[in-house]
């Protein structure tokens, strides 16, 4: 019984992990959003100040910030009448790690390909 419930819980956990990574990448998949990330890593500008930096409407910039926030790439903080936005460094690092893991996976595959080739080259 316990292993059954544990498994269900683990699958839920996996789904959360998967959703996060997917959102991370969609968060990063737009040049404006990447620029917002850079700005908010150096400084914690208000949404108003951010909106002034781009040739688009306040609503459009707000939407980009919302996508980044859902992906956990930025966090908003209320300061008086302003909403300040800052980059979550850990989430950016997580996206980088996902690519590093992909690299490890392919390095492993290439090593195994070489092994199979060398066996074929020198049949026992």
């Amino acid at each position, binding site marked *: 019984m316990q292993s059954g419930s544990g498994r269900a819980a683990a699958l839920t956990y996996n789904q959360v*992990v998967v959703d996060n990574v*997917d959102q991370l990448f969609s968060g*990063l998949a737009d040049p404006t959003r990447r620029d917002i990330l850079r700005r908010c890593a150096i400084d914690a500008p208000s949404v108003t100040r951010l909106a002034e930096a781009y040739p688009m409407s306040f609503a459009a910039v707000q939407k980009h910030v919302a996508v980044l926030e859902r992906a956990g790439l930025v966090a908003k903080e209320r300061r008086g009448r302003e909403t300040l936005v800052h980059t979550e460094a850990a989430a950016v690092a997580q996206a980088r790690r996902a690519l590093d*893991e992909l*690299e490890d996976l392919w*390095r492993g595959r*290439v090593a195994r*390909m070489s092994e*199979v080739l060398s066996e074929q080259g020198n049949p026992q």
Partner: protein
Amino acid sequence: MTVTNVDKDLDACTLTITAEFDAPLERVWELWADPRKLERWWGPPSYPATFERFEFEPGGTVTYFMTSPEGERFYGLWRVVAVDPPRSLDVEDSFADADGNVNPDMPTGQMHMRLTEEDGRTRMELISVNETKEAMQQLLDMGAAEGMQQAIGQMDALLAE
């Protein structure tokens, strides 16, 4: 050293890996085109891959599963976009179920593979675009163990209350 170059573009979510093999091009191609050879390297030793349906032609479907140490199967599916033997292969790689249906909730990645031969050695260039699936498979594998422990820990804590 068979991997000669790795390029990771975080903005484009792209990994480009270049490898050189001390073997003629046809033999490297066989590693992709022969499912029995493909399954010897596609999955890590702890998650060996088994290929089932193998329609290695444009528009064709290739299905496989990877088996966890506990015997659990993780299904995957390739849609073959283009294949030009013995030089190039483009596929879309998705999560699937046991019946070969793509899981629409999971991201699909693209894989472009090119082979070139020079002086009896073969260069393989592999571009993995927006390929979160592979990275996630590993996260899944890690998450399965960590998540399980965490979940059991949480249940124990709840039961102790």
